[in-house]
């Protein structure tokens, strides 16, 4: 299935900003995080799918847009 993966802040370094990727049915958000080895860079801060916060156990669907942020803040 096709999923759009968006990376932000430190997660972009050496990777990409946005890419459409192919994953097997049943892939969870956590599996995407693990495959990209994101948490080697910084702990996961925010995970959104289609602009809504979800848990890492979320099971991705065809056409989903997944956005991954390390812990960031400001204000």
């Amino acid at each position, binding site marked *: 299935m096709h999923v759009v993966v968006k990376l932000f802040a430190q997660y972009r370094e050496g990777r990409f900003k946005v890419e459409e990727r192919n994953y097997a049915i049943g892939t969870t958000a956590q599996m995407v995080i693990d495959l990209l080895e994101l948490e080697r860079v910084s702990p996961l801060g925010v995970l959104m799918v289609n*602009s809504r916060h979800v848990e890492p156990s979320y099971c991705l669907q065809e056409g989903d847009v997944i956005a991954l*942020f390390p*812990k960031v*803040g400001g204000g």
Partner: protein
Amino acid sequence: MADLIYRVNMTNLSFKIEEVPARWLGLGGRGLTSTIVAEEVDPECHPLGPNNKMVFAPGLLSGTSASNSGRNSLGAKSPLTGGIKESNVGGTSAGIFSKLGVKALIIEGLPKDENTFYQLHVTKNNVEFIPVPELVGKDNYAVLDAMMAKYDKKVAVMSIGRIGEMRMNLANVSVKDPGGKLRSHGRGGLGAVMGSKKIKCITVDAADYKEVTIADPDKFKEASKIFTKALQENPISGQGLPAFGTNVLVNILNEAGGLPTHNFRQGNWEHAEEICGETMAENIKARGGKTTHGCHAGCVIQCSQVYNDKEGKFLTSGFEYETIWALGAHLGIQDLDLIAKMDGLMDDLGVDSIETSVALGLAVDAGILAYGDGAKAYEILSHDIPTGTPLGRIFGAGTHILGKAYGLVRVPTVKGQGIPAYEPRAVKGQGITYATTPMGADHTAGYAVATNILNSGGHVDPLKKEGQVELARNLQIASAAVDSTGMCIFVAFAALDDAKCLPALIDMINARFGCALTIDDVMNLGKTILKTEHEFNIKAGFGKADDRLPEFMKYEILPPHNVTWDFTGEEIDEFWNF
């Protein structure tokens, strides 16, 4: 030696130095400024008249070696909102006030002579009143240069530009930072109050620059180490903020559908990538700027930066998310360099970069400029506002009055102050803060974005009503307390996520003063401050109807989540039940 109150009377150009009354001894920063304003300022007075007062107060830990303790508070009745206002800032003033032993500087009265502007020079046991005709009509950097030529570089300088002289509601009070650039007591038009008192600048000189006294130095040192470690080890204050600044928020708010776009018409912007923190950091690195810069001595977070143009020439520092949002998504400018140039100009002019930029975005609805017309926006900022043309005067009155002048309905203000950077319909906890804070729409008063969007301090669904009132209440109480310590509000990220952080902060206060406060005491202080401010506003004429968001947010559906502001008045009013 005990700290003292310095009281200046501009009516007869006199001053006196007073002992601190027992009831003010445990207060600092916002707790002290709001208490003094509530005790001494008639809530019904005209903010620019003889009965308003300006109160400067460093925080309880300012002047110590505690990390991030260099915030100074300024309180007064606000000409923008008509209510009580506290605006705090980094820079060098808090540390120097503390080292001089000034617990608060209270400025009252108005000079009889309307044609003379003064410099107040505050030193040990003395305040000089120096007429400065040569500085009239000058903006902040010219004033700063003049003061640097006159004094030691360590002197603190607080000044107004032409906007403050003209007593516009946009005017801020600008403060020298350790790098010789400017920080701002930004919101609420407090620069207009300074202009009304005919004060062009205030310089503060602690001749021997001694650290403040600490009752228990060993205990202080121990707590300070734990506190600093908590800030440095927290991924937000230790990594994200120094790498990308506060502007890292553009992408996350955009992704969450909470980035107000085109005057609050939608919650995301297709050009966010042009102005985001990641792009900003890339530009800084490529052009020889600085991604890390502290706004005050002792800052270990370093979220500020130095942003240069393509030729490597300085454009601005302290380039914050809220300003970039307002000129970007809200007004439609996609050119980050132009936004930086405008930010730098706003520092020099001495205007609140949030209120000014929110007003510029609203001006699209007024037909004054087209969405995305950066050239016209720059012309208004560089010409109309500082020269006080009739159009500039309308802008100078702020977003709310601009809306009234042009007969607009979609005016993003609460209590007359422009709503910043976070869509209340899609970040509902923040909406409750905007509605209820006595300051008028103020994102720093209770930063529910932390828990709604950033997963800091847990998670409360940003699109649902459940838990938002309680969240905003707890955060406003905590923020009022933190604003009293002299701490940067960003210590809250570590305090929300690290169990050792807040106790260490309280241990430092106890070690500084030789007292035995508990977390409950500090939270009670926060509650008292909020209630004091709320009471002032009620006496000034505010009622429940003022604790509301703009009506259009109730009936206009916000994409992409297609949400409205769906709280009833009764639900919002629950905020004050504590």
